[in-house]
């Protein structure tokens, strides 16, 4: 039965299925894998042992069970995750009833689809290489289901199919590049939420003592940045993410109430529309950042952002945020003017929220009011506070004693005096507000690791930082980092070096830094490669496509694209044709047939035409009747010819010799 899947074809399908499904296990419900293995095992049993296939009722029940579990697994409908899970489920169950070659095709096609779908989850080099391998196996499965050479053993069969699949894929590569370059890039038609309930590390929208300290234990990558022109100095790299205004005595938050994400977003967007109070001055910094998926919408930029490109929103305080929590890497191109003046004329509401304070922490409030009275001016008061951090016995540490009361500022300033950046920023802003100076917390990252090989900056989670902004008349918002007053090395050399002596800080990383520095070099080189890949993948949009096309063919027009497409396709076809040896001369016909053709041609000249389908003996008879003098020779010739054609070739050489002789004889006669 040529339309049935063969045993080896089934194996191909199963291996392809496993290969395609495996990477999804990291993103989607893990129970899909056993479902798949179960279906596959069953199918193989049916093929091998001849067990009857599962009944329709059983299959329906199984499918219902699968769908039920899918619904219960907490996926949001409709979303990409739900679609992927549904496809995977169908993909797994298809193995149960795959019997016909058509089923095999459906499985392979869904496989192609899933390979592409995986890129929505993961776009790294690894994912790309893995997907290439999956494509190869899928094409192999496609071939394995078209043919079965019983002369080959299993290993030969596999090798043969893989070789053909590889050949096809490699030959498609040039054509693929042409199509890829000429294919238009369209804007999104509609959007489907991704929703992946995966916990990720990253800065959250609230700050309590110890939280950023926890984040600093992670060496995960937060984002990478390349600068268009000069690289700014390390001390100026303050990556602003969130501005926290509301304080309840322990925790800093953006707003006085907890808002669901869409409300928060629209509120932040609305207030952005009102700030137009930026006076641009100084040199711009242009840069391109790629943010790793953080599961949160916050993006980190140098302040203030004057303009940007990318799928993001402009929000209050000259910041930028993503419209949805980041589930995939996001690319942003931005221009910032660090020296610009922000909100010299401030709104009353902004001022009000920058002065809000809870009723607690009375000792700190009293201290602030006393100092402010003593020094007489805001500027002198600022100096005094910073001086206090610098001169009093304050310690910058990752492992400060826990602060438990609601009066955390009092506890820190008067008792523990050991703190991380959030302690300094928090107490500083409190002291400012208590003295009547508008102030707020800014959370983000500071500094980063420079990759010489790729000329870009790597910002890790351990670079997370909190600092402050105060508002001064004439100057607007001014950035102040109280941590720098306590531990200048944090800002100058970065967290990794400043905290190197801390117990338990990135212990693996510290070990590598100390004993295996060459490993760091390799890691950076590998990271540079990944970054290049990611930049290319994320950056490739219509404008880049047109740029490449323009470089290739000058002015871009529809005719030119058509011309290039035709030219490219036909050139590639020609090359492939040549490489496949299609134009090799076909082998000539066997000698006896050629001689017979000459014979027919010669008789045709004499007016004796051989009809289509006329058997040689009948033709010989006809010729002999018309040429009675040569009848004997014609019959002999014909007999020799038929003997060669119709008898087992035991005396072939002798027979051929005889035929040639007789032909020569006949030709002289005629």
């Amino acid at each position, binding site marked *: 039965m040529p339309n049935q899947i063969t045993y080896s074809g089934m194996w191909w399908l199963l291996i392809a299925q496993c290969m395609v499904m495996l990477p999804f296990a990291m993103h989607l419900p893990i129970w899909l894998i056993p479902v798949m293995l179960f279906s596959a095992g069953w199918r193989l049993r049916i093929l091998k042992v001849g067990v009857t296939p599962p009944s329709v009722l059983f299959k329906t029940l199984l499918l219902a069970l699968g769908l039920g579990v899918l619904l219960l697994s907490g996926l949001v409908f409709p979303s990409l995750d739900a679609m992927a899970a549904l496809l995977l489920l169908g993909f797994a169950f298809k193995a149960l009833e795959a019997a016909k070659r058509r089923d095999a095709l459906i499985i392979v096609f869904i496989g192609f689809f899933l390979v592409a779908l995986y890129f929505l989850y993961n776009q790294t080099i690894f994912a790309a290489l893995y997907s290439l391998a999956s494509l190869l196996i899928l094409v192999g499965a496609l071939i394995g289901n078209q043919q079965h050479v019983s002369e080959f053993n299993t290993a030969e069969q596999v090798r043969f199919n893989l070789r053909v699949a590889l050949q096809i894929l490699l030959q498609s590569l040039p054509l693929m590049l042409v199509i890829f370059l000429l294919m238009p890039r369209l804007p999104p038609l509609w959007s489907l939420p991704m929703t992946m309930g995966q916990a990720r590390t990253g800065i959250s929208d609230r700050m309590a003592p110890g939280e950023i300290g926890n984040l600093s234990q992670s060496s995960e990558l937060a984002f990478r940045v390349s600068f268009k022109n000069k690289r700014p100095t390390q001390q100026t790299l303050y990556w602003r993410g969130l501005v926290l205004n509301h304080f309840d005595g322990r925790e800093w938050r953006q707003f006085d109430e907890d808002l669901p994400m869409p409300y928060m977003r629209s509120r932040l967007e609305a207030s952005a529309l009102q700030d137009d109070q930026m006076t641009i001055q100084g040199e711009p910094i242009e840069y391109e950042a790629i943010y790793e998926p953080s599961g949160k919408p916050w993006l980190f930029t140098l302040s203030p952002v004057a303009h940007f490109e990318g799928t993001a929103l402009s929000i209050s305080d000259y910041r930028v945020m993503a419209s949805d929590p980041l589930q995939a890497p996001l690319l942003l191109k931005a221009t910032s003017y660090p020296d610009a003046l922000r909100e010299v004329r401030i709104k009353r509401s902004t001022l009000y929220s920058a002065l809000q304070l809870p009723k607690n922490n009375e000792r700190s409030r009293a201290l602030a009011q006393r100092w402010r009275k003593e020094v007489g001016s805001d500027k002198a008061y600022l100096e005094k506070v910073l001086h206090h951090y610098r001169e009093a016995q304050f310690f910058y540490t990752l492992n400060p004693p826990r602060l438990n009361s609601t009066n955390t500022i009092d506890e820190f300033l008067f008792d523990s005096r050991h703190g991380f950046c959030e302690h300094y920023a928090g107490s500083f802003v409190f002291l400012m507000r208590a003295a009547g100076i508008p102030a707020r917390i800014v959370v983000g990252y500071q500094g980063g690791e420079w990759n010489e090989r790729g000329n870009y900056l790597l910002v890790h989670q351990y670079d997370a930082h909190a600092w402050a902004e105060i508002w001064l008349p004439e100057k607007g918002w001014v950035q102040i980092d109280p941590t720098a007053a306590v531990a200048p090395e944090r800002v100058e050399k970065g967290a990794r070096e400043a905290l190197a002596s801390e117990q338990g800080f990135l212990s693996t990383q510290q070990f590598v830094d100390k004993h295996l520095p060459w490993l760091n070099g390799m890691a950076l080189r590998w990271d540079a490669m990944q970054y290049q890949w990611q930049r290319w993948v994320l950056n490739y949009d219509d404008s880049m496509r047109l740029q490449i096309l323009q470089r290739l063919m000058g002015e871009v027009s529809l005719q030119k694209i058509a011309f290039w497409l035709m030219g490219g396709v036909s050139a590639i076809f020609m090359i492939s044709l040549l490489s496949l040896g299609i134009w090799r001369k076909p082998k000539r016909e066997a000698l006896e047939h050629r001689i017979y053709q000459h014979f027919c041609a010669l008789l045709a000249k004499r007016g004796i035409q051989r009809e289509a389908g006329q058997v040689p003996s009948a033709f010989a008879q006809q010729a002999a009747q018309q040429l009675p003098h040569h009848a004997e020779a014609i*019959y002999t010739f014909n007999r020799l010819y038929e003997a060669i054609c119709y008898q087992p070739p035991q*005396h072939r050489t002798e027979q051929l010799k005889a035929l040639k002789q007789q032909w020569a004889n006949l030709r002289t006669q005629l």
Partner: protein
Amino acid sequence: MALLSAKRSLLPEEWLKKRLPWARSTTLDRKRIFIIPSKTALALMVMVLILFILGVNFQNTLVYAVCAWLVAMILINILHTYQNLAGLTITAVQLEPCFAGEKAVLQLSLACPNKQQKLAVQLEWRDEDAVQVNVLSQSPQTVFISHSAQQRGYFTPPRLRVSTRYPTGLAIAWSLVAFDVKGLVYPKPLAHSYSGLTKPSGEVSEDGRDIAQGTSDFAGIRSYRDGDALSQLHWKKYAQTGQLHSKTFVDPTSDERWVDWDNTPFSDTEQRLSYLCTRVLELHQLDYSYGLRLPQITISPDKGEAHKLHCLRALALYGLSDA
């Protein structure tokens, strides 16, 4: 290479004749192979389109790349499918004689150029018979395929569809090969006998043994005479002397019987021939010596396989112009 969207039945015979003349042996080449993407390829294109929309919505470069690769693969695959037929030589070896209403078996010999193996090649007469073969080496591969023959006389099979979807099934390459062969179709034997003949019990050929020319026992060598069977030719002798010689054989004969046109229970020509055919087969099976009498044709009594075929041939071609 001809890219055509037309189906096989839509290709006019006149046009086909120029490209694929009736010949004993046909090598498939550019002019003789037709290719179209299969329905499978169309289905894949639809899937690529959905994928493309997905890529647009998520602005995903790598999804675009997969789309481009799949489209490129569909196109490149056309060449591979073409390549899987190109250079294939199909030779009709012989069409075995059969009785009307039975299947005539065509013996084909398939060969491919060196290192260009052809896999999963389908040979098909629609609604008749289909065979799938792999041609792996240069040495020809023999394939049998059958076609029903309804009428006695000469039977020329219709064009054979030679097609392949290898390697991926995304394209179909096919050719319609016409074989310059004729096969004999003997009259259809009657379902049951009318003669009531039974196998005689042992008395045959013991008395008055008449030695006639036969095919079973070797008798000697004599110089070639017109009408000698090819199988009788003595090739070794020919190679030595340059002259044709035949081997002669003898058969024991028994009493003679006649299968006579005028002595049948039927008056219709075809029914008569069927009856005569049945008689010949019966007499042959009983190992009698028999002769055949048809209007204008008389075959003197004899026995053996060659004689039977001779008689059947006369019956098959009775009244046909190219007999």
